[in-house]
Protein backbone atom coordinates (compact mmCIF):
# COMPACT_ATOMS: atom_id res chain seq x y z
CA UNK A 1 0.00 0.00 0.00
CA UNK A 2 1.38 3.39 -0.95
CA UNK A 3 1.15 5.97 1.79
CA UNK A 4 -0.08 9.41 0.76
CA UNK A 5 2.59 12.10 0.56
CA UNK A 6 1.89 15.80 1.11
CA UNK A 7 0.68 16.27 -2.47
CA UNK A 8 -1.77 13.38 -2.24
CA UNK A 9 -2.94 14.57 1.19
CA UNK A 10 -3.71 18.00 -0.28
CA UNK A 11 -5.76 16.39 -3.05
CA UNK A 12 -7.63 13.96 -0.78
CA UNK A 13 -8.52 16.56 1.85
CA UNK A 14 -9.68 18.98 -0.84
CA UNK A 15 -11.87 16.24 -2.31
CA UNK A 16 -13.23 15.58 1.17
CA UNK A 17 -14.31 19.22 1.30
CA UNK A 18 -11.85 20.22 4.03
CA UNK A 19 -8.76 21.54 2.24
CA UNK A 20 -5.57 22.05 4.26
CA UNK A 21 -2.54 24.23 3.55
CA UNK A 22 0.85 22.85 2.49
CA UNK A 23 2.28 22.88 6.01
CA UNK A 24 -0.68 20.92 7.39
CA UNK A 25 -0.52 18.50 4.47
CA UNK A 26 3.13 17.77 5.25
CA UNK A 27 2.31 17.25 8.92
CA UNK A 28 -0.60 14.93 8.12
CA UNK A 29 1.51 12.86 5.73
CA UNK A 30 4.16 12.53 8.44
CA UNK A 31 1.55 11.54 11.07
CA UNK A 32 -0.36 8.91 9.13
CA UNK A 33 2.60 7.42 7.29
CA UNK A 34 3.39 4.84 10.01
CA UNK A 35 -0.20 3.53 9.97
CA UNK A 36 0.06 2.86 6.22
CA UNK A 37 3.49 1.30 6.68
CA UNK A 38 2.24 -0.88 9.52
CA UNK A 39 -0.74 -2.12 7.54
CA UNK A 40 1.14 -2.59 4.28
CA UNK A 41 1.61 -6.33 4.71
CA UNK A 42 -2.15 -6.85 5.03
CA UNK A 43 -3.37 -4.33 2.47
CA UNK A 44 -4.28 -5.88 -0.86
CA UNK A 45 -4.12 -9.44 0.45
CA UNK A 46 -7.62 -9.98 1.81
CA UNK A 47 -9.83 -12.62 0.15
CA UNK A 48 -12.61 -11.48 -2.20
CA UNK A 49 -15.53 -12.75 -0.11
CA UNK A 50 -14.44 -11.23 3.20
CA UNK A 51 -17.13 -8.94 4.68
CA UNK A 52 -16.48 -6.46 7.53
CA UNK A 53 -19.35 -8.24 9.33
CA UNK A 54 -17.18 -11.35 9.66
CA UNK A 55 -15.87 -9.63 12.77
CA UNK A 56 -19.23 -10.07 14.52
CA UNK A 57 -19.30 -13.76 13.62
CA UNK A 58 -15.89 -14.29 15.23
CA UNK A 59 -16.70 -12.07 18.21
CA UNK A 60 -19.91 -13.86 19.11
CA UNK A 61 -18.70 -17.41 18.44
CA UNK A 62 -18.74 -19.51 21.59
CA UNK A 63 -15.22 -20.68 22.36
CA UNK A 64 -13.94 -22.96 25.06
CA UNK A 65 -10.61 -22.47 26.77
Amino acid at each position, binding site marked *: MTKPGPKEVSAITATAGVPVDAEAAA*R*IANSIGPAFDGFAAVAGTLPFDLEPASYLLVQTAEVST
Partner: protein
Amino acid sequence: MNKHATEPALMSLTAVARAIAEKKFSSREVTQSCLNRIAEWQPRLNAFMAIEAESALAAADAADADLAKGKNRGPLHGVPLAHKDMYYDAGKVVTCGSKIRKDFVPNTTSTALQRLKDAGTIRSGSLQMVEFAYGPTGHNPHYGAVHNPWNTDHITGGSSSGSGSAVAARLTFAALGSDTGGSIRMPAHFCGVTGLKTTVGRVSRAGAMPLSQSLDTVGPLAQTVEDCALLTGLMAGFDPEDLTTSTKPVPDYVAATKGSMKGVKIGVPTAFYVDDLDAEVGRVLDETLATLKKEGAEIVKVELPNQAQLTAACQLVLATEAATFHKRWLIERPGDYGAQVLMRLQNGLAIPAVSYLEAMRWRGPALAAYLAAVTGTDAVLAPVAPMPAPSIAESDVGNSTNAEAVIQRITKFTRPINYLGLPSLSIPTGFTKSGLPVGMQLVGRAFDEATLIRIGAAFQRATDYHAKVPTLT
Protein backbone atom coordinates in the same frame (compact mmCIF):
# COMPACT_ATOMS: atom_id res chain seq x y z
CA MET B 1 -9.43 4.90 64.85
CA ASN B 2 -10.03 3.54 61.34
CA LYS B 3 -9.84 6.55 59.00
CA HIS B 4 -12.83 5.24 57.05
CA ALA B 5 -14.93 5.74 60.19
CA THR B 6 -14.38 9.50 60.04
CA GLU B 7 -13.82 10.03 56.32
CA PRO B 8 -16.26 7.87 54.32
CA ALA B 9 -14.89 9.26 51.03
CA LEU B 10 -11.97 6.87 51.54
CA MET B 11 -14.22 3.79 51.40
CA SER B 12 -14.70 1.70 48.30
CA LEU B 13 -17.90 2.07 46.28
CA THR B 14 -19.14 -1.32 47.43
CA ALA B 15 -18.42 -0.56 51.09
CA VAL B 16 -19.96 2.91 51.10
CA ALA B 17 -23.11 1.72 49.32
CA ARG B 18 -23.50 -0.93 52.02
CA ALA B 19 -22.81 1.62 54.78
CA ILE B 20 -25.54 3.95 53.48
CA ALA B 21 -28.03 1.09 53.08
CA GLU B 22 -27.31 -0.03 56.64
CA LYS B 23 -27.58 3.59 57.87
CA LYS B 24 -24.03 3.60 59.24
CA PHE B 25 -23.52 6.79 57.23
CA SER B 26 -26.15 9.06 55.74
CA SER B 27 -25.88 10.01 52.08
CA ARG B 28 -25.34 13.62 53.26
CA GLU B 29 -22.36 12.60 55.42
CA VAL B 30 -20.86 10.66 52.54
CA THR B 31 -21.50 13.44 50.03
CA GLN B 32 -20.07 16.07 52.36
CA SER B 33 -16.97 13.94 52.88
CA CYS B 34 -16.42 13.78 49.11
CA LEU B 35 -17.06 17.52 48.74
CA ASN B 36 -14.51 18.24 51.46
CA ARG B 37 -11.86 16.25 49.60
CA ILE B 38 -12.84 17.87 46.30
CA ALA B 39 -12.39 21.34 47.85
CA GLU B 40 -9.00 20.30 49.18
CA TRP B 41 -7.66 18.60 46.03
CA GLN B 42 -9.30 20.32 43.08
CA PRO B 43 -6.94 23.33 43.07
CA ARG B 44 -4.01 20.90 42.67
CA LEU B 45 -5.57 18.35 40.31
CA ASN B 46 -8.07 20.16 38.08
CA ALA B 47 -9.94 16.84 37.97
CA PHE B 48 -13.48 18.26 38.00
CA MET B 49 -15.09 20.12 35.13
CA ALA B 50 -18.03 21.19 37.33
CA ILE B 51 -18.58 20.83 41.08
CA GLU B 52 -22.26 20.81 42.04
CA ALA B 53 -22.11 20.89 45.84
CA GLU B 54 -25.51 22.42 46.53
CA SER B 55 -27.54 20.14 44.27
CA ALA B 56 -25.52 17.10 45.41
CA LEU B 57 -26.33 17.78 49.06
CA ALA B 58 -30.00 18.36 48.21
CA ALA B 59 -30.08 15.03 46.35
CA ALA B 60 -28.33 13.37 49.29
CA ASP B 61 -30.97 14.72 51.68
CA ALA B 62 -33.70 13.37 49.41
CA ALA B 63 -31.99 9.99 49.35
CA ASP B 64 -31.76 9.99 53.15
CA ALA B 65 -35.44 10.94 53.44
CA ASP B 66 -36.39 8.09 51.11
CA LEU B 67 -34.34 5.60 53.11
CA ALA B 68 -35.93 6.81 56.34
CA LYS B 69 -39.30 5.95 54.78
CA GLY B 70 -38.05 2.51 53.83
CA LYS B 71 -37.60 3.33 50.15
CA ASN B 72 -34.26 2.07 48.84
CA ARG B 73 -33.81 3.10 45.19
CA GLY B 74 -31.23 0.45 44.37
CA PRO B 75 -27.81 -1.01 45.12
CA LEU B 76 -26.13 2.43 44.93
CA HIS B 77 -28.77 4.34 46.90
CA GLY B 78 -27.48 7.81 47.82
CA VAL B 79 -23.92 7.27 46.55
CA PRO B 80 -22.46 10.46 45.01
CA LEU B 81 -20.56 9.97 41.76
CA ALA B 82 -19.05 12.14 39.03
CA HIS B 83 -18.33 11.00 35.49
CA LYS B 84 -16.29 11.91 32.43
CA ASP B 85 -17.95 14.97 30.92
CA MET B 86 -19.17 13.21 27.77
CA TYR B 87 -22.18 11.31 29.13
CA TYR B 88 -25.35 13.18 28.23
CA ASP B 89 -27.41 14.12 31.27
CA ALA B 90 -30.60 15.87 30.23
CA GLY B 91 -30.56 19.54 31.18
CA LYS B 92 -26.88 19.58 32.24
CA VAL B 93 -24.00 21.09 30.30
CA VAL B 94 -21.81 18.38 28.74
CA THR B 95 -18.65 19.99 27.37
CA CYS B 96 -16.94 16.88 25.97
CA GLY B 97 -13.77 18.67 27.10
CA SER B 98 -14.18 21.10 24.21
CA LYS B 99 -14.71 24.76 23.45
CA ILE B 100 -17.16 23.80 20.69
CA ARG B 101 -19.52 22.17 23.20
CA LYS B 102 -18.85 24.41 26.18
CA ASP B 103 -22.56 25.32 26.37
CA PHE B 104 -24.06 22.11 24.98
CA VAL B 105 -27.10 20.95 26.94
CA PRO B 106 -28.51 17.59 25.78
CA ASN B 107 -32.17 16.75 26.12
CA THR B 108 -31.54 13.05 26.70
CA THR B 109 -29.60 11.05 29.27
CA SER B 110 -27.13 8.37 28.25
CA THR B 111 -28.27 4.82 28.91
CA ALA B 112 -25.19 3.98 30.99
CA LEU B 113 -25.70 7.01 33.21
CA GLN B 114 -29.45 6.44 33.48
CA ARG B 115 -28.91 2.85 34.62
CA LEU B 116 -26.60 4.09 37.37
CA LYS B 117 -29.15 6.74 38.37
CA ASP B 118 -31.81 4.05 38.46
CA ALA B 119 -29.56 2.18 40.90
CA GLY B 120 -29.72 5.20 43.22
CA THR B 121 -26.61 7.28 42.47
CA ILE B 122 -26.57 11.04 42.83
CA ARG B 123 -24.48 13.55 40.87
CA SER B 124 -21.64 15.49 42.52
CA GLY B 125 -20.44 17.15 39.30
CA SER B 126 -18.65 16.26 36.09
CA LEU B 127 -15.06 15.30 35.37
CA GLN B 128 -12.41 16.73 33.09
CA MET B 129 -11.35 14.92 29.95
CA VAL B 130 -9.21 15.33 26.87
CA GLU B 131 -10.91 17.40 24.15
CA PHE B 132 -13.46 15.12 22.45
CA ALA B 133 -11.69 12.14 24.10
CA TYR B 134 -9.02 12.27 21.40
CA GLY B 135 -5.71 12.04 23.24
CA PRO B 136 -3.88 9.75 25.69
CA THR B 137 -2.11 12.23 28.00
CA GLY B 138 -4.62 14.38 29.88
CA HIS B 139 -3.60 17.73 28.38
CA ASN B 140 -6.46 20.03 27.47
CA PRO B 141 -5.79 23.44 25.87
CA HIS B 142 -9.24 24.76 26.83
CA TYR B 143 -9.53 23.68 30.45
CA GLY B 144 -5.93 22.96 31.46
CA ALA B 145 -4.06 19.72 32.11
CA VAL B 146 -5.34 17.33 34.76
CA HIS B 147 -2.70 16.40 37.34
CA ASN B 148 -1.74 13.02 38.73
CA PRO B 149 -2.43 12.87 42.48
CA TRP B 150 0.68 10.74 43.06
CA ASN B 151 2.88 13.50 41.66
CA THR B 152 1.19 16.58 40.32
CA ASP B 153 4.01 17.27 37.85
CA HIS B 154 2.98 14.11 35.98
CA ILE B 155 0.14 13.33 33.59
CA THR B 156 -2.92 11.29 34.47
CA GLY B 157 -3.21 9.65 31.09
CA GLY B 158 -6.26 10.14 28.96
CA SER B 159 -8.65 10.62 27.67
CA SER B 160 -10.52 9.86 30.92
CA SER B 161 -8.07 12.13 32.76
CA GLY B 162 -10.43 13.51 35.39
CA SER B 163 -11.85 10.04 36.05
CA GLY B 164 -8.40 8.59 36.83
CA SER B 165 -7.30 11.55 38.91
CA ALA B 166 -10.54 11.90 40.91
CA VAL B 167 -10.86 8.20 41.72
CA ALA B 168 -7.21 7.99 42.78
CA ALA B 169 -7.55 11.00 45.10
CA ARG B 170 -10.83 9.60 46.46
CA LEU B 171 -12.91 12.56 45.25
CA THR B 172 -15.45 10.17 43.77
CA PHE B 173 -15.95 6.48 44.54
CA ALA B 174 -15.96 5.62 40.85
CA ALA B 175 -16.34 7.30 37.49
CA LEU B 176 -17.39 6.40 34.00
CA GLY B 177 -14.66 6.58 31.42
CA SER B 178 -14.60 5.59 27.77
CA ASP B 179 -11.98 3.55 25.95
CA THR B 180 -11.43 3.87 22.19
CA GLY B 181 -7.65 3.53 22.13
CA GLY B 182 -6.82 3.01 25.82
CA SER B 183 -8.65 5.87 27.52
CA ILE B 184 -9.82 3.89 30.56
CA ARG B 185 -6.78 1.66 30.99
CA MET B 186 -4.22 4.43 30.58
CA PRO B 187 -5.51 6.67 33.41
CA ALA B 188 -6.07 3.57 35.53
CA HIS B 189 -2.42 2.58 35.03
CA PHE B 190 -0.94 6.05 35.49
CA CYS B 191 -3.13 6.95 38.49
CA GLY B 192 -3.14 3.60 40.34
CA VAL B 193 -6.83 2.71 40.07
CA THR B 194 -8.81 -0.15 38.56
CA GLY B 195 -10.42 0.26 35.14
CA LEU B 196 -12.49 -2.04 32.97
CA LYS B 197 -12.60 -1.64 29.20
CA THR B 198 -15.64 -3.66 28.22
CA THR B 199 -16.19 -5.73 25.10
CA VAL B 200 -17.53 -3.76 22.12
CA GLY B 201 -21.32 -4.26 22.42
CA ARG B 202 -21.44 -5.06 26.15
CA VAL B 203 -22.45 -1.59 27.44
CA SER B 204 -24.70 0.81 25.54
CA ARG B 205 -23.11 3.88 23.98
CA ALA B 206 -26.42 5.67 23.48
CA GLY B 207 -26.02 9.22 24.76
CA ALA B 208 -22.26 8.95 25.08
CA MET B 209 -20.24 11.33 22.90
CA PRO B 210 -18.99 9.35 19.90
CA LEU B 211 -15.38 9.23 18.73
CA SER B 212 -15.25 6.00 16.71
CA GLN B 213 -18.37 3.90 16.26
CA SER B 214 -16.39 0.70 15.70
CA LEU B 215 -14.04 1.09 18.67
CA ASP B 216 -15.80 3.13 21.40
CA THR B 217 -16.52 1.34 24.67
CA VAL B 218 -18.02 2.47 27.97
CA GLY B 219 -16.63 1.30 31.30
CA PRO B 220 -15.83 2.24 34.89
CA LEU B 221 -12.78 3.37 36.83
CA ALA B 222 -12.91 2.64 40.56
CA GLN B 223 -10.80 1.62 43.54
CA THR B 224 -11.39 -2.10 43.25
CA VAL B 225 -12.29 -4.84 40.81
CA GLU B 226 -15.38 -5.50 42.92
CA ASP B 227 -16.51 -1.90 42.39
CA CYS B 228 -15.99 -2.22 38.63
CA ALA B 229 -17.92 -5.50 38.66
CA LEU B 230 -20.84 -3.87 40.46
CA LEU B 231 -21.00 -0.92 38.06
CA THR B 232 -20.58 -3.00 34.91
CA GLY B 233 -23.32 -5.37 36.00
CA LEU B 234 -25.67 -2.42 36.44
CA MET B 235 -24.85 -0.87 33.05
CA ALA B 236 -24.38 -3.88 30.78
CA GLY B 237 -26.95 -5.48 28.52
CA PHE B 238 -29.03 -4.87 25.43
CA ASP B 239 -30.32 -1.36 24.86
CA PRO B 240 -32.95 -0.61 22.20
CA GLU B 241 -31.36 2.85 21.89
CA ASP B 242 -28.07 1.25 20.77
CA LEU B 243 -28.62 -1.68 18.44
CA THR B 244 -24.91 -2.53 18.48
CA THR B 245 -25.37 -3.82 22.02
CA SER B 246 -25.39 -7.58 22.45
CA THR B 247 -28.40 -9.60 23.55
CA LYS B 248 -26.11 -12.04 25.36
CA PRO B 249 -27.16 -12.42 29.01
CA VAL B 250 -25.19 -10.37 31.53
CA PRO B 251 -23.40 -12.63 34.03
CA ASP B 252 -23.33 -11.90 37.77
CA TYR B 253 -20.04 -10.00 37.79
CA VAL B 254 -20.04 -9.46 41.55
CA ALA B 255 -20.36 -13.22 42.07
CA ALA B 256 -17.35 -13.61 39.77
CA THR B 257 -15.22 -11.64 42.26
CA LYS B 258 -15.51 -14.52 44.74
CA GLY B 259 -13.67 -17.02 42.53
CA SER B 260 -10.11 -18.06 43.19
CA MET B 261 -7.11 -18.16 40.90
CA LYS B 262 -6.76 -21.94 41.22
CA GLY B 263 -6.79 -23.58 37.82
CA VAL B 264 -6.56 -20.30 35.93
CA LYS B 265 -4.15 -20.24 33.01
CA ILE B 266 -2.64 -16.85 32.16
CA GLY B 267 -0.76 -16.20 28.95
CA VAL B 268 2.23 -13.89 28.80
CA PRO B 269 3.23 -12.63 25.36
CA THR B 270 6.72 -13.53 24.20
CA ALA B 271 7.08 -10.30 22.22
CA PHE B 272 5.66 -6.81 21.57
CA TYR B 273 4.08 -6.27 25.03
CA VAL B 274 7.38 -7.14 26.73
CA ASP B 275 9.60 -5.17 24.34
CA ASP B 276 10.85 -1.63 24.93
CA LEU B 277 9.69 -1.62 28.57
CA ASP B 278 10.86 0.92 31.10
CA ALA B 279 12.93 -1.09 33.62
CA GLU B 280 10.51 -0.45 36.47
CA VAL B 281 7.52 -1.57 34.40
CA GLY B 282 9.47 -4.72 33.58
CA ARG B 283 10.15 -5.30 37.28
CA VAL B 284 6.47 -4.87 38.17
CA LEU B 285 5.48 -7.28 35.39
CA ASP B 286 7.80 -9.93 36.88
CA GLU B 287 6.46 -9.32 40.39
CA THR B 288 2.87 -9.52 39.16
CA LEU B 289 3.53 -12.85 37.48
CA ALA B 290 5.11 -14.14 40.68
CA THR B 291 2.03 -13.14 42.70
CA LEU B 292 -0.36 -14.71 40.20
CA LYS B 293 1.64 -17.93 40.33
CA LYS B 294 1.73 -17.90 44.12
CA GLU B 295 -2.06 -17.54 44.17
CA GLY B 296 -2.47 -20.64 42.05
CA ALA B 297 -2.48 -19.44 38.45
CA GLU B 298 -0.52 -21.26 35.80
CA ILE B 299 1.60 -18.96 33.66
CA VAL B 300 2.24 -19.92 30.04
CA LYS B 301 3.96 -18.13 27.21
CA VAL B 302 1.86 -17.15 24.19
CA GLU B 303 3.08 -16.17 20.75
CA LEU B 304 0.66 -13.58 19.45
CA PRO B 305 0.20 -12.57 15.81
CA ASN B 306 1.84 -9.31 14.72
CA GLN B 307 0.41 -6.75 17.16
CA ALA B 308 1.95 -3.76 15.39
CA GLN B 309 -0.31 -4.49 12.43
CA LEU B 310 -3.32 -4.30 14.77
CA THR B 311 -2.13 -0.91 16.01
CA ALA B 312 -1.84 0.34 12.44
CA ALA B 313 -5.30 -0.96 11.54
CA CYS B 314 -6.70 0.65 14.70
CA GLN B 315 -5.22 3.99 13.70
CA LEU B 316 -6.75 3.80 10.21
CA VAL B 317 -10.20 3.02 11.64
CA LEU B 318 -10.08 5.51 14.52
CA ALA B 319 -8.73 8.43 12.50
CA THR B 320 -11.26 7.98 9.69
CA GLU B 321 -14.30 7.57 11.93
CA ALA B 322 -13.31 10.49 14.19
CA ALA B 323 -12.79 12.78 11.20
CA THR B 324 -16.17 11.76 9.83
CA PHE B 325 -17.99 12.61 13.08
CA HIS B 326 -16.22 15.97 13.21
CA LYS B 327 -16.37 16.93 9.53
CA ARG B 328 -19.00 19.65 9.91
CA TRP B 329 -17.09 21.39 12.68
CA LEU B 330 -13.81 20.94 10.78
CA ILE B 331 -15.40 22.98 8.00
CA GLU B 332 -17.28 25.50 10.15
CA ARG B 333 -15.18 25.91 13.30
CA PRO B 334 -11.61 24.66 12.82
CA GLY B 335 -10.26 27.48 14.97
CA ASP B 336 -12.22 26.26 17.99
CA TYR B 337 -10.25 23.01 18.28
CA GLY B 338 -7.02 22.70 20.21
CA ALA B 339 -4.00 22.34 17.90
CA GLN B 340 -3.33 18.65 18.61
CA VAL B 341 -6.92 17.45 18.23
CA LEU B 342 -7.33 19.50 15.05
CA MET B 343 -4.20 17.93 13.61
CA ARG B 344 -5.32 14.42 14.51
CA LEU B 345 -8.79 14.95 13.08
CA GLN B 346 -7.26 16.28 9.88
CA ASN B 347 -5.19 13.08 9.70
CA GLY B 348 -8.38 11.11 9.19
CA LEU B 349 -9.41 13.19 6.20
CA ALA B 350 -6.41 11.88 4.28
CA ILE B 351 -7.16 8.16 4.63
CA PRO B 352 -8.72 6.74 1.46
CA ALA B 353 -12.01 4.86 1.86
CA VAL B 354 -10.43 1.68 0.51
CA SER B 355 -7.74 1.73 3.23
CA TYR B 356 -10.36 2.29 5.94
CA LEU B 357 -12.55 -0.54 4.65
CA GLU B 358 -9.62 -2.89 4.31
CA ALA B 359 -8.84 -2.26 7.98
CA MET B 360 -12.48 -2.99 8.83
CA ARG B 361 -12.60 -6.14 6.70
CA TRP B 362 -9.45 -7.51 8.38
CA ARG B 363 -10.93 -7.23 11.87
CA GLY B 364 -12.60 -10.66 11.78
CA PRO B 365 -9.55 -12.61 10.59
CA ALA B 366 -7.31 -10.65 12.97
CA LEU B 367 -9.55 -11.55 15.94
CA ALA B 368 -9.69 -15.19 14.86
CA ALA B 369 -5.89 -15.33 14.64
CA TYR B 370 -5.53 -13.77 18.09
CA LEU B 371 -8.04 -16.19 19.64
CA ALA B 372 -6.25 -19.13 18.04
CA ALA B 373 -2.97 -17.94 19.54
CA VAL B 374 -4.40 -17.75 23.07
CA THR B 375 -6.32 -21.04 22.94
CA GLY B 376 -6.07 -22.80 26.28
CA THR B 377 -5.57 -19.63 28.32
CA ASP B 378 -8.14 -17.74 30.37
CA ALA B 379 -6.55 -14.32 29.94
CA VAL B 380 -3.41 -12.62 28.69
CA LEU B 381 -1.39 -10.38 31.02
CA ALA B 382 0.49 -7.39 29.62
CA PRO B 383 1.61 -3.93 30.69
CA VAL B 384 -0.83 -1.12 29.90
CA ALA B 385 1.97 1.13 28.67
CA PRO B 386 5.74 0.74 28.38
CA MET B 387 6.33 3.49 30.94
CA PRO B 388 4.89 4.99 34.15
CA ALA B 389 3.27 8.43 33.91
CA PRO B 390 5.52 10.85 31.98
CA SER B 391 5.79 14.43 33.23
CA ILE B 392 3.27 16.98 32.00
CA ALA B 393 6.08 19.03 30.48
CA GLU B 394 7.71 16.21 28.50
CA SER B 395 4.42 14.97 27.05
CA ASP B 396 3.07 18.40 26.06
CA VAL B 397 3.76 17.91 22.35
CA GLY B 398 0.80 19.82 20.90
CA ASN B 399 0.79 19.50 17.11
CA SER B 400 4.56 19.23 16.72
CA THR B 401 5.93 16.93 14.04
CA ASN B 402 6.73 14.22 16.60
CA ALA B 403 3.33 14.42 18.36
CA GLU B 404 1.84 11.35 16.70
CA ALA B 405 5.00 9.35 17.47
CA VAL B 406 4.75 10.27 21.17
CA ILE B 407 1.05 9.34 21.20
CA GLN B 408 1.79 6.05 19.43
CA ARG B 409 4.35 5.03 22.05
CA ILE B 410 1.99 5.75 24.95
CA THR B 411 -0.89 3.82 23.32
CA LYS B 412 1.27 1.03 21.91
CA PHE B 413 -0.12 -1.69 24.21
CA THR B 414 -3.75 -0.60 24.34
CA ARG B 415 -4.73 0.03 20.73
CA PRO B 416 -4.44 -3.58 19.50
CA ILE B 417 -7.05 -4.58 22.08
CA ASN B 418 -9.44 -1.86 20.89
CA TYR B 419 -9.08 -3.03 17.32
CA LEU B 420 -9.95 -6.58 18.41
CA GLY B 421 -12.83 -5.25 20.55
CA LEU B 422 -11.87 -7.42 23.52
CA PRO B 423 -12.40 -6.69 27.22
CA SER B 424 -9.39 -5.63 29.26
CA LEU B 425 -9.10 -5.03 32.98
CA SER B 426 -6.38 -2.69 34.23
CA ILE B 427 -5.34 -3.28 37.83
CA PRO B 428 -2.79 -1.52 40.05
CA THR B 429 0.19 -3.85 40.42
CA GLY B 430 3.00 -1.81 41.94
CA PHE B 431 4.87 1.46 42.20
CA THR B 432 8.10 2.88 40.85
CA LYS B 433 10.86 3.88 43.25
CA SER B 434 9.73 7.49 42.85
CA GLY B 435 6.19 6.55 43.89
CA LEU B 436 4.33 6.49 40.57
CA PRO B 437 1.78 3.70 40.12
CA VAL B 438 2.17 0.92 37.57
CA GLY B 439 -0.75 -1.14 36.29
CA MET B 440 -1.11 -4.26 34.20
CA GLN B 441 -3.94 -5.26 31.89
CA LEU B 442 -5.67 -8.63 31.75
CA VAL B 443 -7.10 -9.20 28.28
CA GLY B 444 -9.93 -11.70 27.88
CA ARG B 445 -12.25 -13.18 25.30
CA ALA B 446 -15.17 -11.23 23.91
CA PHE B 447 -17.98 -10.92 26.50
CA ASP B 448 -15.90 -12.75 29.11
CA GLU B 449 -15.39 -9.84 31.51
CA ALA B 450 -16.33 -12.26 34.30
CA THR B 451 -13.07 -14.21 34.00
CA LEU B 452 -11.01 -11.02 34.13
CA ILE B 453 -12.98 -9.92 37.19
CA ARG B 454 -12.39 -13.27 38.86
CA ILE B 455 -8.62 -13.04 38.31
CA GLY B 456 -8.39 -9.34 39.15
CA ALA B 457 -10.37 -9.65 42.38
CA ALA B 458 -8.26 -12.60 43.51
CA PHE B 459 -5.13 -10.55 42.79
CA GLN B 460 -6.49 -7.68 44.87
CA ARG B 461 -7.22 -10.01 47.78
CA ALA B 462 -3.53 -10.95 47.72
CA THR B 463 -2.15 -7.41 47.35
CA ASP B 464 -2.88 -3.89 48.58
CA TYR B 465 -1.72 -1.64 45.72
CA HIS B 466 -5.34 -0.71 44.97
CA ALA B 467 -5.89 0.40 48.57
CA LYS B 468 -3.07 2.93 48.70
CA VAL B 469 -4.14 6.57 48.80
CA PRO B 470 -2.02 9.53 47.67
CA THR B 471 -1.40 12.33 50.14
CA LEU B 472 -1.58 16.02 49.40
CA THR B 473 1.90 17.49 49.70
